[in-house]
């Protein structure tokens, strides 16, 4: 339980909505270790996004603490990036794709900034669209733009808030492969919040299952599918189905009432 190995350590974090007594997080503890891909799944509306905002440093916890490399910071650490679900609201519509990707790099000298933007766009295969505006792109391309913005900042930690929930099935599969490739290549420590159990098992090294509100981690399951995942062979393997079954059962058990459909 040393903090050194954890890039992000969530310790006994509780959170209520201000002004009323709805508790969202209940003494939740979680850690992301160096280079790990952790997926967090849970029933709809259980507070996954709130957890992510706490981890990002966007929302202070009521009690407990979030440590980034052993330190408690007042805001988002500079080595952390996020991709939000809703690209239409997180990308800046008045900036071209290129300028969106370079948005957080103002402090760098111009040449280095251009180079980083170029590399990030190349990584998501979007070089040809650099001078278009985000709203001129399809949903999948916009989400790739958001991904490029996230990695252009050279992060060590990448947070993904249901990043594939707003795109069609085929695009989702392409994006999953793209994200996995990027995370491995850049050795990112990644935290994926999703309601898609198959996606969590397919992508992660470890899956944490949350309870219904107020959320706690009820189960952590190691996904021993090896570092290389393939949409066909991995998803057809007996081990994958077994793990998916386990996670699915656990999530179902948490969602006591009839299963809802909306994401949360």
């Amino acid at each position: 339980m040393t903090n050194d190995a954890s890039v992000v350590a969530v310790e006994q974090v509780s959170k209520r909505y201000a002004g009323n007594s709805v508790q969202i997080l209940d003494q939740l503890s979680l850690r992301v270790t160096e280079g790990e891909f952790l997926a967090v799944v849970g029933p709809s509306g259980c507070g996954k996004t709130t957890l992510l905002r706490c981890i990002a440093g966007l929302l202070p916890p009521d009690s407990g603490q979030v440590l980034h490399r052993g330190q408690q910071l007042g805001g988002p650490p500079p080595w952390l990036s996020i991709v939000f679900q809703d690209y239409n609201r997180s990308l800046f519509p008045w900036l071209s794709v290129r300028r969106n990707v370079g948005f957080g790099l103002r402090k760098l000298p111009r040449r280095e900034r251009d180079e980083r933007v170029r590399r990030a766009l190349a990584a998501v295969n979007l070089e040809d669209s650099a001078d278009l505006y985000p709203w001129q792109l399809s949903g999948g391309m916009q989400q790739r733009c958001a991904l490029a913005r996230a990695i252009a900042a050279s992060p060590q930690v990448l947070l993904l808030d249901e990043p594939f929930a707003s795109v069609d099935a085929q695009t989702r599969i392409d994006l999953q492969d793209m994200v996995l490739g990027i995370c491995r290549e850049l050795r990112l420590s990644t935290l994926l919040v999703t309601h898609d159990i198959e996606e969590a098992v397919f992508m992660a090294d470890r899956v944490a299952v949350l309870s219904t509100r107020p959320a706690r981690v009820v189960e952590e399951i190691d996904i021993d599918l090896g570092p290389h995942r393939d949409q066909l062979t991995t998803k057809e393997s007996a081990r994958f189905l077994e793990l998916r079954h386990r996670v699915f059962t656990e999530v179902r058990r948490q969602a006591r009432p009839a299963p809802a459909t909306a994401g949360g």
Partner: protein
Amino acid sequence: MSSKAIPTEAAQPPYGVPAEARSKVRSAATGPGRSRVPPWRTRLWQLLWQVGFVVVLLAIWERAAKTADVPYLPPLGDIADGYVSLFHGELLTQELLPSLYRVATGFGIGVAVGISVGLLVGYLRAVEPWVRPVLEFNRAIPVAAVLPGALLLFGATDTMRVLVIAFGCTFPVLLAAIDGARRVDDLMLDSARIAGLSRPQTMVRVVFPAALPQILAGVRIALGIALIMMVISELIAADNGIGQYILRNQRLFRTADVYAGVLVIGTVGWVFTTAILQAEKRMLRWHRGWRSLPE
């Protein structure tokens, strides 16, 4: 321009199609075959009708001026002389330029104050409900009503006129900026924080551009107020300016010059409005494209 500005749903490309292919899709969707009459011909006809209408109106006026010998119907030639004389020589420097200086300075100050204070109040949401009633009440004051008070405080000076114009321009811009800043998406603000922007940087680089559509709507209202207040402030105790020129000629029963002054103000207003509309068109191209996005 229209062939590449806004993607329609039909032209929305499949995932991964490169840019060149997409623009082809778009121009195919909006290309030839939609209208049978070439656009230049429609525009020419429209122009002919517009010019024709003006010519007819002027002809009626001229005919009336020739037949009826009344002072309020001066011949067009006299009005045109007065109009032209305001654009050169002494009348330009003594009447038109001082007016333009007042309107430009007052408008500029009002817009600048309105934008900066409005963005601040709208961004720091905690302050907003607290100051809002004061601002709403101030906006409800017809600006002309503050004129006597301003005359008392600052005297019949240029400062007074500029301040009155600025006062009138501030509130529509201010309230629009508050609204725009309040409506900035939380996710964009989160994105700015993650990107490491400080609060002032976020104001300039995120809140301001996001609020620009609302702000420019306020600016257009402010322009109208600025022109009105320019004239009114010059009707009271001024020794120059276009408003004063009109008033002076009215007292001398020089009807043609009175009308010429009014036409000059109309021209000034038209130039300003056109300039702002053009600027708006350029600055908000992204906004129209963004909002017309299907879904």
